[in-house]
């Protein structure tokens, strides 16, 4: 019984991690109906940059966020503004294929620059575990959970209370109407993508500290991110939180039931199941 409780708590913490790694994807999808195929690679970029800052310049990764977040924001803004924005007129496949192209380019850039070897971000505190009575939880996972709550709350407030946030929501609800109201929808899209990339910078840091990463690892994070988005219902920040928790729980409990080798498989099967039976997500509206 104790072991299952521990697995549940693990699952919740893991869920927090997944929330952070999926939040950018969810935002972009909710606003632009674009599944950012390059999302995994953006996460990895955050991880690689944080790692480089640590190993080459000795900058603590969390401090390094001051650099990686703006950098990734700028990159995301450019990607959307210069390339993806132009493709929406060609239908839904074109932006997706372009994002696919980006992801291919990125993966190979990473391999060329940093080799295919696995990396992780190790600091003096990254391996510590905290005693929760029932179990020892990796400190980083707790940090990830806290980050998830902060980011979700922050994003929610941003979208609800600021003018830009409201503009984003307007563009998400109806681009044409927003345009008529004087909102530069293309600029809003670029901004949204940039924010998504910036969040991915944080997610990437957590990926690097909690797990290790290789250039080809982006796909799994893309898939898990999409699982979170689909589970939580499209375009809902709170839904993303719920979806992440559900994913974390099913992975953790699945690992307990079938063994850790099968945990990713369980997650994917849950995904295919939900997609088939309830495509609007567990919390979405049809």
């Amino acid at each position, binding site marked *: 019984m104790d072991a299952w409780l521990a697995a549940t708590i693990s699952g919740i913490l893991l869920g927090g991690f997944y929330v952070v790694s999926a939040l950018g994807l969810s935002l972009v999808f909710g606003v632009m109906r674009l599944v950012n195929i390059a999302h995994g690679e953006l996460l990895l970029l955050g991880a690689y940059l944080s790692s480089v800052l640590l190993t080459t310049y000795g900058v603590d990764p969390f401090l390094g966020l001051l650099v990686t977040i703006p950098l990734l924001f700028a990159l995301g803004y450019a990607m959307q503004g210069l390339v993806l924005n132009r493709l929406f007129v*060609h239908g839904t496949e074109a932006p997706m294929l372009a994002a696919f192209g980006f992801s*291919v380019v990125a993966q190979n850039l990473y391999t060329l620059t940093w080799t295919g070897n696995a990396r992780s971000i190790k600091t003096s505190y990254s391996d510590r575990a905290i005693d929760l009575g029932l179990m020892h939880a990796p400190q980083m996972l707790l940090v990830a959970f806290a980050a998830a709550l902060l980011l979700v709350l922050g994003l929610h407030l941003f979208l609800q209370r600021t003018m830009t946030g409201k503009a984003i929501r307007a563009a998400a609800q109806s681009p044409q109407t927003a345009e008529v109201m004087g909102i530069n929808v293309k600029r809003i899209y670029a901004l949204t993508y940039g924010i998504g990339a910036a969040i991915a910078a944080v997610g990437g840091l957590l990926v690097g500290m909690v797990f290790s990463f290789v250039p080809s690892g982006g796909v*799994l994070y893309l898939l898990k991110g999409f699982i979170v988005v689909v589970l939580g219902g499209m375009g809902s920040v709170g839904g993303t939180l719920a979806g992440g928790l559900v994913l974390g729980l099913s992975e953790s409990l699945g690992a307990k039931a079938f063994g850790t080798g099968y945990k990713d*498989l369980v997650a994917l099967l849950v995904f295919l199941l939900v997609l088939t039976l309830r495509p609007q997500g567990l919390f979405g509206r049809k």
Partner: protein
Amino acid sequence: MDSNEAALAPAGPRVGQRLRPRLGSLLLVLAVLFLLAAPQVVSRYGVFLLFTGLLYLALAYSWNLVGGYCGLVSLGHAAFLGAGAYTSTLLLIHLSLPLPLALLGGATAAAVLSVIVSPPLFRLRGIYFTVGTLALAEALRLWMIAWPVTGGAQGLTVPHEVVPDRVAMYYTALLVAAVAVAIVVLTVRSKIGMALRAIRDNEDAACNLGVSSRKAKLTALVLSSFIAGLVGAVWSVELGRVEPYSMFNLTWTILMVNMVIIGGSGTLGGPVVGVVFVVALSHYLADYASLQVLITGLLVIAVVLFAPGGVWGALRRAPGWGGRLLARARGGGD
């Protein structure tokens, strides 16, 4: 063009119009003759390049059928490749089947897989479908790693004795490519082909007009997966082993998608251009595998931005002799 026909053809502009399709078919015949004679006239390395190119061609046609003609962008086609490779290897190891049967077995297994996954997969539209295929390929890969029967992360080795020599492998690839092209061309030019294009353009409207969308999509997917499975099986024999990383690798899918998009999706000539390009790139940048894929990725972005019809599409629209030659020669496609 033989002299009889030239003598009988009426003079004037009509001569030119009869000339172009003939030229296209002539080129095609020459190409086929060259391919048939290749092992005699080309170096070993050249034969290997052609071998690879022919398998890529089959793959490109396979993906094009579903992605180009039907608009179902599949990023998980590696699943079918892997299914074919693993099944064929298992058949060779455990049942000692003769090679051709094992290859066909692999292809059939891939087709069966597609039938099994089609009910859930086809309920997904657009982007959901694409991510669903990604999930499928990834799930299969993880399953192969976890399952002892399939050798886990180490994979399985193809029994030595079964692997034929280079020339036989080459002709096998040629046969596979021929079969793939034949299947796709016949399908595209049939009623199913029209149904696929109708579904691509607007699935709901097509259904309203009486097109059985499920049947058409399923046919396309089954045929496409059959070809992909066949290629996977052949490739596994060439490599001598199967393991989850290489067989279900996204790189295969990337290759397929890139070849078709760059060459021109939804056309019969596009994949050929894409294949030639990719093989040439692999030759000139042989030491820089990552760079090769990077360049194709950049080209995909460029194509999507500036030339959605791919190289083939751009050429067909080109003014003047070149464009009209291409437009008439390969009459099928768009």
